[in-house]
Every structure is written in structure tokens, then in C-alpha cells.
């Protein structure tokens, strides 16, 4: 600290910007403390000045996160309208209509990525059809193991793999080389789920329609896995070995935390939701060389748009919704109908069909118990929205409901 401060009066000190930042934000805490300790006479002045700064500090009246997001949405809506050449006066009435447009157009974001990463991974199980009947484990030597159940478990421990709590594959006996490049894969078709415990104790829940690649034993310096589809992770804490989840175009880096990644090839976006801990997200592209990582805080969601190659970070007070599928329910809040259909398609291994002219900007909020039959789930949706379903085998035809239109929307 500069000696000039010793000559300052309390008033002068109180209005010094560096002093203010120390008191309010703790900037250079140790240097200031040391300085005060060195000159005990100075301390009284510091105390008085601190009180002044604190009296005038103003940490109250923060705008709630929800409101921050709401205003931002409106700004984005307004921007879209500007782009279409019509400047409309935004009112508080636009609640329903524009949100659908917005969800599709989620463009801007606090996104900062960097580095080119050549670690693209080709799934050897990529030719396996997602509509197939069983989940599969594909070992690094090419052997395939059927995971018979709808909801299977796989646990790695001491170089052996335990499946559905009974059959055990000893990796050593199978003469598998335990090197990092040789990965094992799990393929979870539509309608199925799989739970994994990795070598380091990390738990992974794989949602329907996902592929996941992992080593039998992690490398010395990092824990690298590959994902296509959706997974919820509870990463075992290890600050020495970062856990790296690679999805098409992005890499999520963590030390120990709980989060969900949804990266289906058929989706326009990749969503990362953080429940606990901290994660960094970076884009894996040469073009992204100058972008910084995105750091997520708990209760935040990063949405990466694959076409536009940019991200938005969203506060999400209902992050648990994102991992509802782990426990067999699917909850949505202000999600549009098509989004709901997409999730049901994967989960129940069916297809929704509708006319090109079928339009809906209905937003649904609710919770579906996926252990119930598809018919039951569909009847819930019919009750809460303006659509009707007609089922023929695995195809569900969607039509508008006429006469009565009860909109669930809050």
C-alpha cells in the first residue's frame, strides 16, 4: 500500500476508490490488513472510514434472478421483432406467444470458449439402431453383451464389470488391455435406461437414446468420457484428475459435482445443467480458439446452439426438473409441446406425427410419471392442452382439439 494513505483524513480515505473496493469487495484484503498492522496509528482512521463506506454501501434491492431472465427474454423478443422490420411496443401481455419463438432462437449468451480439441470420438456402436430392443455393452475388444433389462446397471470395480448385480465380466481374464485409448461403450436405445458406476466411483445415469464411452481404468492425468444423448453425472471428487465429458462440439470439465448434459444429435441445442459444484464448458472447434470457457454455478443452465455456435446461460430455479428422468418422471416447466413430444418419443420409443400445418405455441408445465403407460401419459397431456392423440402401433397422430380449448398456462 502506498504511504500517501497515512496522511489522508478519514473522509479522504473513505472516498478513495481502492479503499472502497477493499471494504465492499475485499479487494487486496491481505495487503490492506498488513498495511494497517504496520501502522497502528492509522487504524482508527481506517475504522471511521470503513463505517462511512459501509453506511453508504448499497447491497440491497437486487433484482431477482427470475426477473433478470424475464427482462432479458423480452429484450430478445424485441430484438427479433426489430429484425423483422416492425418495431412493436413491448407490453407485459406477450407472455405466451413469443416464448416458443424464443426457445428456438435462443441465440445470445454469456458464452466464452477456447481451444481446439481434436478429441472427436467415433462410437463403434454407432450403427446400432436406437430403436433396437436391448441396451448393449460393447467391450473394447469388440465383444457385445446384452443388458437384458429396461433399466440396467453396470458397475466397474477392480478391473471387472458387474452387470445387473449378477453377472461379472473379469476384464483381465477377457484379456482386455487396460489402456486409456481402448474404450468400452454402452448403447441405450429408446425406451431404456442404464445406470453406471465408473472405476473412480463416479455415477452416471444414461437416458434413453444415448451412447456412452468410458475406459475400464482412467488415465493418470484426467478422466475422459464421451457422450451422445443425455446423462446425469455424480462425479467423484478428485481435484488432481479433472473429469472430462466430451459431447459433439463441447467439452464439460469438472472436478467433482452433480450435473446433467443433454446432447442428442437430433436436438438443435446442447444443454448442461449444474446442480452442485462447478463446471467449465468449452467449445471444441478451431473456430472457437478465442472463446473462453463458460463457468456454471449451481442452478444454472447453459444452452449451446449448435448452428450458431453460441451459448446462453440461464438461471434455473428448477434444476431438479432436468434430472427428473433419473427417478422415472419427466417434469417440464413452460416447455412447448414439441419439446415434450421429443422427450416422450425417446422414452417410450414411439413417434409423434402431425400435419405440417399443425402449429402450437402452447407451453406446458407439469410432471409426468414415466412408469405409467404411454396411453395414460398421453391422456394427461390431452387433458391439459388443446391436442388429441390417435395411436397406431408405435406412431401417434397429433391433432388439434376443437370446441374446447382449455389452456394450461401460468
Amino acid at each position: 500500500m502506498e504511504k500517501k494513505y497515512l496522511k489522508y483524513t478519514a473522509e479522504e480515505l473513505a472516498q478513495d476508490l481502492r479503499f472502497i473496493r477493499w471494504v465492499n469487495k475485499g479487494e487486496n484484503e491481505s495487503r490492506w490488513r498488513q498495511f494497517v498492522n504496520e501502522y497502528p496509528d492509522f487504524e482508527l482512521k481506517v475504522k471511521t472510514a470503513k463505517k462511512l463506506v459501509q453506511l453508504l454501501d448499497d447491497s440491497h434491492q437486487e433484482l431477482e434472478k427470475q426477473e433478470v431472465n424475464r427482462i432479458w427474454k423480452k429484450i430478445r423478443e424485441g430484438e427479433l421483432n426489430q429484425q423483422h422490420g416492425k418495431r412493436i411496443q413491448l407490453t407485459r401481455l406477450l407472455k405466451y406467444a413469443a416464448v416458443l419463438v424464443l426457445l428456438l432462437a435462443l441465440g445470445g449468451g454469456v458464452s466464452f470458449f477456447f481451444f481446439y480439441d481434436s478429441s472427436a470420438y467415433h462410437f463403434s456402436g454407432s450403427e446400432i439402431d436406437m430403436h433396437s430392443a436391448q441396451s448393449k455393452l460393447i467391450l473394447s475388444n469388440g465383444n457385445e453383451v446384452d443388458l437384458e433389462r429396461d433399466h440396467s446397471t453396470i458397475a466397474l470395480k477392480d478391473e471387472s464389470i458387474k452387470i445387473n448385480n449378477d453377472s461379472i465380466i473379469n476384464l483381465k481374464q477377457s484379456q482386455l488391455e487396460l489402456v486409456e485409448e481402448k474404450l468400452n461403450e454402452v448403447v441405450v436405445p429408446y425406451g431404456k435406461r442404464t445406470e453406471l458406476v465408473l472405476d473412480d466411483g463416479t455415477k452416471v445415469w444414461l437416458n434413453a437414446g444415448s451412447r456412452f464411452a468410458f475406459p475400464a481404468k482412467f488415465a493418470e492425468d484426467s478422466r475422459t468420457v464421451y457422450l451422445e444423448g443425455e446423462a446425469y453425472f455424480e462425479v467423484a471428487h478428485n481435484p488432481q484428475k479433472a473429469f472430462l465429458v466430451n459431447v459433439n462440439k463441447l467439452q464439460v470439465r469438472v472436478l467433482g459435482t452433480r450435473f446433467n448434459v443433454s446432447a442428442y444429435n437430433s436436438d438443435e441445442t446442447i444443454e448442461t445443467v449444474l446442480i452442485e459444484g462447478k463446471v467449465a464448458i468449452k467449445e471444441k472447434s478451431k473456430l472457437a480458439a478465442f472463446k473462453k470457457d463458460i463457468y456454471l454455478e449451481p442452478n444454472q443452465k447453459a444452452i449451446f446452439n449448435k448452428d450458431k455456435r453460441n451459448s446462453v446461460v440461464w438461471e434455473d430455479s428448477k434444476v431438479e426438473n432436468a434430472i427428473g428422468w433419473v427417478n422415472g418422471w419427466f417434469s417440464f416447466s413452460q416447455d412447448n409441446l414439441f419439446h415434450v413430444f421429443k422427450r416422450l418419443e425417446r422414452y417410450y420409443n414411439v413417434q409423434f406425427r402431425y400435419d405440417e400445418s399443425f402449429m402450437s405455441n402452447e407451453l406446458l408445465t407439469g410432471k409426468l410419471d414415466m412408469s405409467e403407460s404411454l396411453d395414460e401419459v398421453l391422456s394427461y397431456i390431452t387433458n391439459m392442452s388443446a391436442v388429441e392423440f390417435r395411436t397406431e402401433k408405435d406412431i401417434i397422430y397429433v391433432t388439434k382439439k376443437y370446441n374446447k380449448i382449455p389452456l394450461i398456462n401460468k
Partner: protein
Amino acid sequence: MKMDKNIWGEFKKGNSEATSHIYNRHVQILYRYGKKITSDSELIKDTIQELFLDLIRTRHNLSELDNIQFYLIKAFRRRILAELKKNTLVEKIEDRTSSSELTITYSYEEELIRKEHLTHREKIVQKGLKALTPKQREILFYRFTCNFDYSQICELMSLKYDSARKMTFRALQSLKQCLSKTDFNFFVIHFQLFEI
């Protein structure tokens, strides 16, 4: 503030990530600033929204700058003053008629207002805050909450450098005197929070 300069440049080019960054980074300070001026939160939120929409609309014509927060506060101030003036004409609120003056209320002050019974000490502090002129309050906000330097404060409030310094000094002096009349018990809480 080289970073601000780059981000602003990106924003002008139409980079929507830059827009989102600017918004997320500054929305809280704008809101707090608004709350100091008026209790009408809806007006504040609408003003923030309109401010950003106008910036986006005219982004290509905006000049370069190296302190985004300062620019936003300045633009926001102009807008909210105009809005308040409009409302005043309609509702005839005596309080806000003085043309370009803002009345800033401090959060501690508001706490005191809400309290039913004030201790002797609190009364003295309240009196001290009450004694501040609107201009002094505004300067203190820019300095203590926004951390602006004096040249920026002068630009915002069309003041001369010397008078801005003088006003600040006098305000702090009188507040200090108030504080010294009390034995600061109420600060104990603040200090403890700070020490953690």
C-alpha cells in the same frame, strides 16, 4: 478497461453473446440505481428493457467507449428522468418536480424508515442522512456504489471538478460527525459480516 472496449466493439458488430454479457453484467447496478431514484420497480424494469432495445436498434451508430457501466448509467439516468417527469405531470407529485434532480434514498435509511422505534443512535444517523442534499446523495452513490472517478461524476451531473470534490467531502464530514456521536453498535453486525 480494454475488455469493455472489446466487448462493446463486439456488441456494435451485432454479436448477441456480447449483448447478453453486457446485460447480465450491468442489469443489477442499473436496477439498484433505479431503486435509489424511484420506488416504482415496474418503471425501472421497463426502462432497462427499453434502454437495451434502443441500444440494440442503434448499435451500428454507437460510438466506441471504454467504460460500459458509465455509459449505461448515463443513458439510464436520462431516460428515467424523462419518464419521471412525464409521470409527475400526470400525477402531480410535488416531490419530483425539480427538473433534473434525483432523490436517492439509501438502503440503511429505508431500513430505518420501516422500523417503528428507533434508538437514539439510529435517530442521529437518520438525521445525518436526511441532511444530505439530493446532489450529495447522487454523488455518493456514483462514488461508493458505482466506483466512478470524479471526472465521470462531473460529466454525469454537469458539475465542476472542485465542487464535486467539495460536496463529497462535506457530505462525508457531516456523516462522520453523526457517527462519532453514536457508539456504532449497529455497525457491529455489518463488521462481523465483513470479517467473515
